């Protein structure tokens, strides 16, 4: 029971990170391998805000999210849009964006290593016990989960109940047809990319309240987010949320029952199962 709750609490934050990636890949068609670096950068900003300026990370998020939107939009418009224009087909775009975001991954990681060193960072925020069903959990984890759930709910409302959100979903389904019904596809793609970056940054901020982080851990989180996105079905917000919770629970189970060093192996085991049995995602329908 304790494992299940811890896993679900962790999965909530994973969901937010993966939602960011699924918007970037599902709508903007950019496989952003530097996604984890956005997350780590947000961790560091939250750390700095909390320790130096003494700003509560939940309030800090109000500053971090707009900054992340702006920066990610700049990355999209400046670096990735030229690739979108250059690409003759989807396969070429995929190769180019993978390599370009790889470059960004190493660049950002290198810069953060130079700035902060390779050491581990953490800060104490709401490190008090909180009782759920008789067992105690860190209050920071519970708060992070609630915050993640509220942000995800807001995103859901936005995507499914506003015109703008519907347009984004239309681009995710079929960019060519979306153009026919007067949706400005390049602008939507840029917006989705920026919004995705902001979601990941929020996930990073929440993660930093209870997780020990360092400058080079971004890749691991990119991996996790990618696996969640594929498990949930590319561009599928609800699928990604469910997949994130499954991953969180599976990881916690293996870490507490077998060995904490095998978390990645757990991720891969899930990944292989999905690839073998449901490559279209747990909620996805088989494509033609």
């Amino acid at each position, binding site marked *: 029971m304790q494992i299940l709750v811890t896993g679900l609490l962790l999965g909530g934050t994973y969901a937010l990170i993966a939602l960011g990636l699924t918007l970037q890949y599902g709508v903007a068609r950019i*496989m952003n*391998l530097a996604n984890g670096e956005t997350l780590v950068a947000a961790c560091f900003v939250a750390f700095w805000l909390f320790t130096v300026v003494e700003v509560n990370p939940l309030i800090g998020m109000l500053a971090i999210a707009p900054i992340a939107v702006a920066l990610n939009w700049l990355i999209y418009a400046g*670096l990735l849009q*030229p*690739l979108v224009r250059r690409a003759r087909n989807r*396969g*070429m775009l*995929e*190769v*180019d964006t*993978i*390599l*370009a975001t*790889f*470059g*960004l*991954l*190493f*660049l*950002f*990681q*290198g*810069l953060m*290593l*130079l700035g902060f060193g390779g050491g581990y960072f953490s800060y104490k925020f709401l490190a008090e016990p909180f009782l759920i069903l008789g067992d105690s959990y860190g209050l920071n984890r519970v708060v992070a989960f609630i915050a993640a759930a509220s942000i995800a709910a807001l995103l859901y409302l936005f995507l499914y109940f506003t015109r703008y959100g519907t347009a984004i979903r239309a681009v995710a389904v079929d960019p060519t047809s979306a153009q026919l019904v007067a949706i400005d596809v390049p602008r939507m793609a840029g917006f989705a990319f920026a919004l995705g970056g902001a979601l990941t940054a929020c996930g990073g901020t929440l993660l930093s309240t209870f997780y020990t982080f360092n400058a080079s851990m971004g*890749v*691991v989180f990119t*991996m996790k987010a*990618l*696996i969640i996105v*594929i498990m949930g079905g590319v561009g599928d917000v609800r699928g990604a949320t469910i997949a994130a919770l499954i991953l969180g629970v599976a990881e916690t189970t293996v870490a507490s029952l077998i*060995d904490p*060093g*095998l978390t*990645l*192996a757990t*991720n*891969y085991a899930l*990944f*292989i199962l999905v*690839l*073998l049995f449901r*490559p279209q995602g747990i909620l996805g329908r088989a494509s033609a």
Partner: protein
Amino acid sequence: MMGLHRNEMVVAAFGLAAVALLSLLPLVSEGFALSLGVNLMLYAAMCTAWALFSGPTRLVSLASAAFFGVGTYSVALGLDSLPFGALLLVAALSSAALAGLVGAATLRLSGVYFVIFSLGLAELIRQIVAWSQSRFAHKMGLYVFTDLTERDLYWMLLALTSLVFVVGWLINRSRLGFALRIIGDDETVARHVGIATARTKIILFMISGAFIGIAGAISAPRYAYIEPQAAFNPMISFQVVIIALLGGTRRLWGPLVGVVPFIILMEFITSRFPNHSSVVVGVAFLAIVYLLPDGVTGLLERLRDRILRRAEPGVSSTTRNEIGEKAA
């Protein structure tokens, strides 16, 4: 079909002369130059092997470190029971088996899955090896003591590189190579003309993985003490990708062009600015994507075409390209 074209004879003669010349290096130099030579040769073999698969299919494989590590560990684990030559075979077979498993799981699906899967593969195997070592063997590393000198390793790697070239050339003129070129151009067309696309890709990935595994096995004696962090260093995968793309993957010899400048650059960076290597790797990736999408060889070819077109306006450049394609 098996007869050698005259152009090919010339290329083969040049190749043999180059190999003969390169094999003299250990006789004239020791120490730093030889050690650099081993490094260059190692990456020459790995990058060419990488490009065998990733060149025609355009699937970026980041699994090199995993194959390298499997090769290294095959030697470390079997050194007491088998001769070195047999261990190279073991390394090749186990890497090929790993490549086959990965390929069977991912290459039937869209390319992105393959890239993502290969991205974490080395780290996954590293975790499992580290876990099983601490669980069952209660130690973190393994010793590798052999009588092989740096000189022997250099020659072995040179032989391996030559072998990769011969195999690559044979693949190019076989049905497999023809099928691959069609897949690379248009996978839907390939499927419609009856090519088993997934199987073709898996076979090629296994060949490429086996060579990288052998390269890892040959490098094992250099380490003397092998631990998971060093054997499955993810940087190997990224450097292989950068070098091969820097040189260009359209030609078999393309990756060779990238090896020398990049390895020397990395040696310089790691000795002078050890903290900047990530930044350099990042900038290298970006530079390739934005400035050299076809690598140095692609750039040279475009320049050559432009000059030729200006010199002889009568000859169309497309026929020239086709001739070049067949000769390479």
